[in-house]
């Protein structure tokens, strides 16, 4: 239970960090941004400590040894929280926009809240023995690679949201204070593209790794199960975004709407698919 308590502490710190991200949006004192960083860093430390304890409990089952514990919904959501927060820290640290917290951290918060709720409703952190199909070294690679790409897409979604708000502000006759706090449209548009350009290859590589794993397990690279199909749809939508931006020169709102469609597919692939198919889902662990 200690790992659940530690995770709940991490979730509380993520919540506080998200609130500070919003405060920074309205009251641009650098101290809010700094404290947001500190809280997130401590939250990540708590989260890692929780994950360490959970890993020890997971490895207590001999078949699970040396595999990452993401074969349950709790584990997947927890890893997703860590991935979104981690990529946010990297993106924010690199681009120093400050304002991004209010647009990206709600996703990390949602994932953290979902994880905490799942832990509460299941009465623990869902430690299961790995099904035979999951006892492969690919278990430590394929889902994590995909999750990193999802997390970066989540960051891009936040940037896209900021762009839409900024564009709306600039179009209005009386722009609010927020307009002067948000970066320029061009900067946001470029960052949205850069993030998707980084995440898209990672997603496709993750999908290919899944295909190679499926070939090792069942002798088929592609089986058209719902998860595979929706990950392909996600890749196709982002491919449309990249083509329209790079070849047709789409910028601004149209490009952002396309990328948002892609992120809707990401969410459906991660969460929704579990409800339409038993295979390849965190809820069935098959």
């Amino acid at each position, binding site marked *: 239970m200690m790992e659940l308590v530690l995770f709940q502490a991490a979730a509380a710190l993520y919540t506080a960090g998200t609130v500070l991200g919003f405060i920074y949006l309205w009251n641009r004192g650098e101290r809010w941004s700094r404290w947001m960083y500190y809280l997130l860093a401590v939250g990540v430390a708590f989260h890692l400590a929780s994950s360490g304890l959970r890993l020890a409990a997971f490895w207590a089952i001999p*078949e699970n040894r040396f595999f990452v514990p993401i074969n349950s919904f709790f584990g997947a959501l927890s890893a997703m929280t860590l991935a979104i927060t981690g990529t946010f820290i990297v993106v924010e640290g690199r681009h120093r926009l400050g304002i991004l917290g209010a647009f990206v951290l709600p996703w990390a918060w949602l994932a953290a809240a979902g994880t905490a709720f799942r832990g509460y409703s299941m009465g623990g952190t869902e430690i299961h*023995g790995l099904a035979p199909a999951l006892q492969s070294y690919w278990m430590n690679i394929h889902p994590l690679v995909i999750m990193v790409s999802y997390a970066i897409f989540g960051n891009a979604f936040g940037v896209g949201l900021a762009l839409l708000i900024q564009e709306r502000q600039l179009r209005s006759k009386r722009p609010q204070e927020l307009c002067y706090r948000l970066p320029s449209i061009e900067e946001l548009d*470029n960052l949205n593209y*850069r993030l998707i350009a980084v995440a898209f290859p990672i997603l496709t590589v993750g999908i290919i790794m899944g295909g190679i794993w499926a070939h090792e*397990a069942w*002798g088929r690279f592609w089986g058209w199960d719902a998860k595979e199909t*929706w990950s*392909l749809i996600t890749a196709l939508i982002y491919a449309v975004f990249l083509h329209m931006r790079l070849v047709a020169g789409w910028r601004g709102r149209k490009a952002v709407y396309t990328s948002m469609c892609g992120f809707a597919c990401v969410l459906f692939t991660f969460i929704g698919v579990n409800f339409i198919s038993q295979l390849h889902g965190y809820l069935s662990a098959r």
Partner: protein
Amino acid sequence: MEMFRSVKFNVGLICVLAFACGVGSFIPQAAESPERVEVFLRAQPFWGGVLEGAGLFNVFRNWWFFSLLALLGFDIALCKCLRLPGLEPQESAEEVAQSIGGRPLRASFMGGVRPAAAAEAIRSLLRASGYSVRQAPGADSDRVALCASRHRLQRWGSFISHSSMVVILAGGLVKLVFGFQGSLAIPEGGQAPVPRRPGWELAMDRFQVEHYQGSGSPKLFASDLRLLDRGRVLAQKLIRVNKPMVIGRLGFYQETWGATGAWRSATLSSPQGDVVLRPGRAQALPGGRGRVSVGELIPDIAIAEDGHAHQASSEPRNPALRVRWEAPGQKPRALWLLRDEPDAAFAEDARGVLSRVPPPFRLAAVDMVLFSGIQFVYDPGYPLIVAGALAWLAGMMLLFYLHGRRLWVLVSPGTGQACRVLMGGWNSQGPVAYRDEFEALTERMREVSS
């Protein structure tokens, strides 16, 4: 042909493919879950007929879906594979002069030295900054045009990644045309002929299954296989999920397992003592309680609404034995005993309807004959798919992770001893990502040519 090469057409094609995939994921597919298709057809006969007529119960194996994939492959080949990036013509000085005006990043300044000296200084500076520089042909003695680029390999990224998709699709086509696959259900100790390989037989000597304590879900299932060619052993391996036996390009994969319905022994337990039953033999119960014989084994029993016993699945989740009990002075009775519910027994009447009764004895254990579901797959297209996937990875890395940069510099005579420098820049990651470097380069060029 121009239509096939247009961005709109290709993006539209990708959208249609994505839509078809989405449809296929929501409508039950006959290849993956035929039982769900049956349920749908029974529940919605009209709409079921419509969907069946349109082939929507078989989206991913339908001719129109394959046509879409083929069209995608054709388009990619047309748009990318036939346009090698290295075959682009070199720009002349005149073209450099014209192209600078259309570049997203532009700068101009006056230098204090003659054009040739300024061009030489700029060339050295760019080389020191990691650019490869060449002089555009067609310049005169006064005017020098330079084309510089950095990370030129980036230009190959699009070509390689698109071409690799054609290779992946070709791999799928090779499997479709030349490959085959199927399933063999082999009981322990049994063997089965391998389809399309005359004389080959697959023998399964031993099947092993282990479960996690508590949840009861399987943690291991493995089959000890021997592949025989007219009695000669070609290969032998203990296979499990993720550990197949592969010979040539023919692989044998552990897919599923279950109970055949046959059994070797069963142990009945009662306060008077235990008795071990064998198939086909009646056995006396201890304490003079009569005789029992076993008629049928159901590995996963369920009771239907009409009260009859039926098999829910082939997995031995809830095994039940139908025993015929001849108690002294009573009519023979048919009883169902459940291994996992020792406090329950069901009496079966003449119509086959079950009713719950107190168990006269318990089914303590049953040794079932299991079968192993082995999937055999011959996939000659897989190496192509892997090669395509690796090329895709390389192409994506080049395309998105290398920051390709190009500069065009035109140095022409100014007034007196001075020169005029015009420059334009392009980069693969958008002007914002290059602006700072471009401005810094401009400043340093101004310094070296002043």
